[in-house]
């Protein structure tokens, strides 16, 4: 007979080494970055208002200096200032789109997970098939048909990113259904809705919140890619994608700083969210490998 008592523990430890385990310092740094990013982009209009359409044609493409920490762009606009607002817009798009995707995915996954059986099989097949549609192509299609705008970009991201959420919610619900406390609740005469709301939801919500958080970098990326292709937000708005797109030309004329700040903001915020989410997932479920799903 095997040393069964020892085995799960061994496997568990073997797996635990695979997770991204940011050190305490990493987590604190990431947390600080995110707090600064979120608070900064929330307070920016009060503290450091930006006229989105302002230009200063007499100080175009000046290198970083004390007056312009990240330099100015082709139209003499302060890159650092616009990067703050770019982050603000990108986070807004990211958060709203992620929320849309979460609601969609939550509903589909919830139906599949609570009803199970045939409904589940069909829904999951549908999800699989839609998952085979390239995100970016579908997103481009949606934006092209709705015309590029804030709403279209949000719709484009939301409508293409709900699949993983649906899968997560569904599998979580299916695994919960087999837990004793759910049986107990059902045997205790609780209605389906009551079981769902009182017993299942509290377990699913944290995971859903995690999925939403992890989706924000995705959404920011999607927005950036669409803007890069010229299909995103109106080009004069300060969004990170627009800024990188604008900065491309400056790069060739030697003004490397115009795309540096927005690019750095994307990378830093993406990594910060990833690090925190990894730790969060670690807490939530020590058995699951916390890959960075960027």
């Amino acid at each position, binding site marked *: 007979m095997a040393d069964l008592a020892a085995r799960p523990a061994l496997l568990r430890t073997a797996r635990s080494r695979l997770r991204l385990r940011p050190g305490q310092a990493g987590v604190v740094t990431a947390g600080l970055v995110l707090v600064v990013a979120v608070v900064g982009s929330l307070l920016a209009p009060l503290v450091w208002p930006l006229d989105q*359409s302002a230009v200063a044609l007499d100080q175009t493409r000046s290198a970083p200096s004390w007056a312009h920490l990240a330099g100015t762009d082709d139209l003499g606009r302060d890159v650092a200032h616009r990067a703050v607002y770019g982050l603000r817009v990108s986070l807004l798009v990211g958060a709203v789109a992620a929320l849309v995707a979460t609601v969609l995915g939550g509903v589909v996954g919830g139906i599949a997970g609570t009803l199970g059986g045939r409904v589940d099989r069909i829904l999951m097949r549908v999800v699989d098939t839609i998952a085979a549609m390239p995100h970016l192509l579908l997103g481009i299609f949606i934006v092209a048909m709705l015309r590029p705008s804030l709403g279209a970009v949000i719709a484009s991201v939301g409508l293409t990113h709900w699949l993983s959420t649906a899968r997560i919610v569904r599998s979580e619900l299916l695994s919960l259904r087999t837990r004793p406390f759910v049986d107990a609740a059902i045997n205790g005469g609780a209605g389906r809705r009551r079981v769902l709301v009182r017993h299942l939801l509290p377990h699913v919500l944290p995971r859903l919140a995690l999925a939403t958080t992890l989706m924000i970098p995705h959404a920011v990326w999607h927005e950036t890619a669409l803007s890069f292709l010229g299909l995103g937000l109106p080009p004069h708005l300060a969004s990170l994608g627009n800024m990188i797109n604008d900065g491309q030309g400056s790069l060739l004329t030697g003004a490397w700083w115009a795309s540096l700040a927005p690019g750095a903001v994307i990378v830093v915020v993406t990594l910060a969210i990833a690090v925190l989410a990894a730790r969060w997932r670690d807490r939530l479920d020590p058995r699951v490998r916390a890959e960075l799903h960027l």
Partner: protein
Amino acid sequence: MTRMRPTFRRLVASTAAAGMLVLAGCSAPTNPDGSSDGTTLVVATSDEPDALNPVLNYGVDGAALIFDGLVSRDGDNRLVPGLAATLPTVSADGRTVTAKLRDGVLFHDGTALTAQDVVFTYQAVLDPKVDSTLRSDLDMVESVTAPDQATVVFRLRHPYAPFLQRLTLGIVPSKLLSGQDVNTAGFNRKPVGTGPYAVESWTPGDRLVLTANERYFAGRPANNRVVVAFVADDNVRAQRMRAGEFDAAELPPKLAAAFDEDTTYRVQRVPTADYRGVMLPAGNPVLADPAVRRALSLAVDRSAMVSGILGGAGEPAFGPIPPTSEFVDPSVVGAPTADATAAAALLDAAGWKPGPGGVRARDGRPARFTLMYPAGDTLRKDLALAVTADAKKIGIEVTPAGLTWDAIDPRMKSDALLMGYGTPYDPDFVSYKLFGSTFAGQGYFNPGSYRSEVVDRALQNGRDQIDPALRKAAYAQFQQQLAADVPWLFLTYLRHTYVLKSSVRGVTPRVEAHEHGVANSIWWNIDTWTRS
């Protein structure tokens, strides 16, 4: 060699053919700087034609490389005979135009050009079933006939002074297109013309390869082959120019400026009739006030736009007739820099008083409007923002809106729009429709519904009169009235900027039109270019 898709088939075919037909240098991959063999010139542009068919809008202003019109233009944009032996003659009543064809002109496939081909070409444009957008430019044509193999007669519904300027349209061979749906014919991808170059291959999205027409009526081109590379992205085009791939490329002014220092390149800033301006619709309650429009015209800093946005490659614009044109009226030219004080005084006098937040208002109506620009156009975006900033200084609040054309479309009656157009060939072109009241509210013609009897009369005179002096007077009146009414806020004329390798010889820029690309760019006479 026939044009084939870049597939395995093509590889096999070209490999097989290489041994017999082509010298080793052609089939072997050339070195990255492969253009140094001196016989192939490579030019790069962003605008790839949808179809290489003059009937479907390709190269209608001539210099189409593959096609010739009855007439063409020289380095000063003067008309010279093309496929016509001499410049066509206009009858005394101005309603009959007769063209005699040049002898012995052959299409690339070896067949002879006849008057039938000319008739077919123009009839195709006029055929409602053909999706040709040129039709409205030729709506004065009543009939096109060929009394004999070498004569073409146009009958016009009414006299039209600049009609000969319309005859630059390339002629297509009727036998390859008659009986077919011109909209979808294979010809559009693999055209046959009479021009200095024949199409060797066209890889959409990549390149158009042209080979010299040995039997070109005006003499064999000085080079063997022209490759037009289609690179939509400005930055990529600049990178590839920098990497030495092209002999000539059109680049935005700021990217082109990066080549100024380098002696292996030459930057050409070509004067144009290509203007940018803000269409100010009469249907907007704020913009309906001429005082506001005039104040805006005073408030915009055109020279700052030229230097800050165009990198110096342009001139301030004050009207739709370019400074290079003989029809320009110098009296309409204003100050290139902003005069905010005068603008403010104008607004004050008209009752627009400074209100809360620095925005003026009159009778409770704040001085604000939306300025639309096409989202894909960086230059128009930049200009829209510059206008916004200048307007703010005199208390007018402008909201820029980057939109696609179809979103702009329904709003043009009430929202301002950053537009661009212009042709150097005749003042009637474009302006007749853009400012004539009969075209008010019709699509992109006069979308702001500008109405002025003076302008209408002047435009009509300009078109009806044959006498150049009378025409000039008519257009002077037109320009003055426009300057007074300010239906458009003219901002700048562009200079089209091209980067060329210094080794290229024979480049003679001429004033360019708004529309330029494969055809009618700085390489309009590329058949005479050589390399030193």
